[in-house]
């Protein structure tokens, strides 16, 4: 059930109705029931696997709490970690073998995923929970029901945000739905729908055409398409997150933010502070810090190895494909170079006025992210390199007929109607990006803004892509 489908909103509405009619003490059971139903409707296998993994993790963690520090405790701890790591790896392998996500983008209608909804997201939560319990950082005793809730809570199940134990578990069964939360939730859902249906889904066909069908014919098309894919991915994923956070708010729950204007980042480190925040903070806390701590005697290698291993695992988490690994490792290298330059005190901010240096840094960061995402988006390494061969072929960078060779392929046609639609899409993207800060502030507010709501609904109806529901990209992970 896609989060922007009518079925989802019917499901959400019905769940909320029952939730509000249920006495306070039983509300969490209603949410859990709805979550199980949500997963079960998607695939019964997913529900069974979630219950098995959550139950095993819960009881292993319970043993950790009750056992003094000894070998048995360590054994329990590592068996819990191994169980969840193996589940992720097995899931990734069964889903797509050692390939990239060719079939997701190219043949989504005929490809049968080995579908286990949200597994790689809740397994990370399980691992986080085990670590917190092992180091006694999360001392609260929780019930199995609460732990099921923690993993299965349906708004965030399929594609996060990934919650850490202290972020969600203490809220379960203790929340009270207030009017301002309902307003904030509704406005966030609306923002998510606009991002997904008005921006991401309008960009998607052109990007699909260039990446999967025609290929970029020249450098400028390759550059432009790489930029557009970055924008598509951002609006798609952050749109999903907005709907998830908004839906959770309607039940009174606050879940972690996942984005903070990442396309305005002025360095790769800054980008990762603003992009997929829940994954970054999980990786930082549970992978990077422990590695750095263990290697603390050698500060340089602790940082470099910490970054490389963290990003390697992040790539592996996305999939077994070599393209994902290169995508992730490239970011690690960018960060290491950034740290080196910083250490040497080389920065354009020293020679240029702040506004210009910020603009150049922003553009450079956006370009590097877009180039790395070519690996993420390409079906194979060969395809990615072919793409770069065109991108950096400066002899054919700008073609003679710009309209026919650059705009028309992205617009899916050179006729007036296709070109008009493409220009509208670009205008919508630019307007949104230019006013992004203000738009985010308005929609994150818990104050009812009637003209904004009415305006957003109208924009959704006028420009949103309704007829074909594109899958959210991150639901495949």
């Amino acid at each position, binding site marked *: 059930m896609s989060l922007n489908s009518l079925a989802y909103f019917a499901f959400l509405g019905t769940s909320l109705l029952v939730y509000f009619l249920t006495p306070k003490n039983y509300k969490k059971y209603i949410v859990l029931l709805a979550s199980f139903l949500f997963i079960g409707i998607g695939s019964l296998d997913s529900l069974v696997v979630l219950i098995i993994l959550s139950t095993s993790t819960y009881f292993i963690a319970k043993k950790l709490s009750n056992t003094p520090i000894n070998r048995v405790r360590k054994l329990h701890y590592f068996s819990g970690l191994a169980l969840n790591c193996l589940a992720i790896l097995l899931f990734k392998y069964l889903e797509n073998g050692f390939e990239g996500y060719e079939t997701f983008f190219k043949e989504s209608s005929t490809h049968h995923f080995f579908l286990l909804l949200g597994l790689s997201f809740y397994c990370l939560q399980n691992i986080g929970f085990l670590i917190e319990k092992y180091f006694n950082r999360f001392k609260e005793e929780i019930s199995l029901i609460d732990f099921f809730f923690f993993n299965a809570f349906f708004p965030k199940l399929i594609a996060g945000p990934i919650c850490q134990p202290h972020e969600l578990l203490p809220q379960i069964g203790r929340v009270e739905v207030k009017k301002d939360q309902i307003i904030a939730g509704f406005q966030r859902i609306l923002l998510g729908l606009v991002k997904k249906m008005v921006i991401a889904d309008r960009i998607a066909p052109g990007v699909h055409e260039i990446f999967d069908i025609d290929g970029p014919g020249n450098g400028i098309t390759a550059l432009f398409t790489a930029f557009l894919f970055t924008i598509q991915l951002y609006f798609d994923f952050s749109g999903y997150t907005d709907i998830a956070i908004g839906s959770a708010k309607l039940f009174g729950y606050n879940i972690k933010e996942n984005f903070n204007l990442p396309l305005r980042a002025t360095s790769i480190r800054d980008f990762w502070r603003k992009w997929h925040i829940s994954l970054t903070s999980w990786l930082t806390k549970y992978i990077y810090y422990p590695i750095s701590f263990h290697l603390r005697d050698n500060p340089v290698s602790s940082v470099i190895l910490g970054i490389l291993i963290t990003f390697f695992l992040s790539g592996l988490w996305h999939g077994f494909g070599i393209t994902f690994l290169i995508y992730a490792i490239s970011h690690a290298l960018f960060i290491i170079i950034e740290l080196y330059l910083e250490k040497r005190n080389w920065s354009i901010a020293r020679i240029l006025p702040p506004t210009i240096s910020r603009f150049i840094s922003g553009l450079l960061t956006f370009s590097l992210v877009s180039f790395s995402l070519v690996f993420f988006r390409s079906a194979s390494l060969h395809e990615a390199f072919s793409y770069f061969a065109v991108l950096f072929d400066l002899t054919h960078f700008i073609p003679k007929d710009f309209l026919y060779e650059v705009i028309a392929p992205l617009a899916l046609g050179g006729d007036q109607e296709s070109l008009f639609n493409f220009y509208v899409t670009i205008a919508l993207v630019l307007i949104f990006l230019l006013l992004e800060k203000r738009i985010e502030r308005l929609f994150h507010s818990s104050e009812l803004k009637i003209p904004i709501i009415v305006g957003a609904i109208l924009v959704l109806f006028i420009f*949103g892509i309704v007829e074909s529901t594109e899958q959210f990209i991150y639901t495949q992970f």
Partner: protein
Amino acid sequence: LKDVKHIVIILGAVLFFLFILEKSYDYLLHENLNIKTSYVVNHKIDADLLIVGPCVPDWMLSPELLKKETNLSAYNLAKPHFSFPDIYLNLHLYLRENTPPKNVLMFVSPESFDLNYNIFNSYLYGPFLSDSIVNKVVLDMDPDYMKWTSFPFMKYAYYNKKYHFNAIQGLKHILKNKKSPYFIDGFEPQFNNWKITPDAFKSEYPKNYSFSWDPKRAFYFLKIIQLCSEKDIQLILYESPFYSSTYSDSQNRQKIINKTKKIVEKHAIPYFIFDTLDMSHSMHNFQTSINLREQSSIEFNKLLGKLLSDSIINK
């Protein structure tokens, strides 16, 4: 009470604006002279010969050239990607406002019955859904779309990418008080200098392509025959030349043609197939496997016009 008031204000405002938008789009799309369906509904064409079908006749058949041979006034109502349900609806809407033509010339080939070629263009009928026949056919062909159409503006919101440009063009036509469309007789020549390679032709049809026969398409094919018969219109079918090597390995092209012939023979409908012309053998006469280039198209118009004139019209 204040909350209820807010909800009512939001819902009321949204519904009000959507209602205004729907009415505006209804009007603007009706007034767009370049949308053939709108044009024939709002203007008297009263052609003697009406050309219908997908891109092949739309891009290739010139009413002006055909008139020279047949002496019949003609209008080209064909549109790219049109399938039989589209043709049926456009014919129905044309006949609603115009005198029935003496002849309807329709392109029919094995592709016409195959779902891999052409589509049903539901979006074209947004402004005409109040017509019961249009409503029924769109419901039959695109029930998902029809589910939404009872909600204000959703008949345009659902396929909104297909409407904005046309609505703005409609506004331009109103403001400029335009009287005739860009293509006056409906003929929309698309003679591009596309690079032609044997591979490009091959890619249009997979090796050993086998055509399928969609029962729904066949149903609307019969509906067209029935409509023409009711209105006492002589329906004429034709298939224009195609690049001969395109179908050389097709498993069942002839089978589909024979099946079609069997149907039309029952209704005494002539079906002309131009599969033996010399021009079929040279790749350079084509811009796609079934669309001729400009010069060969002119030749074909003359040939077709003469054939119609000799074998049907003058008889």
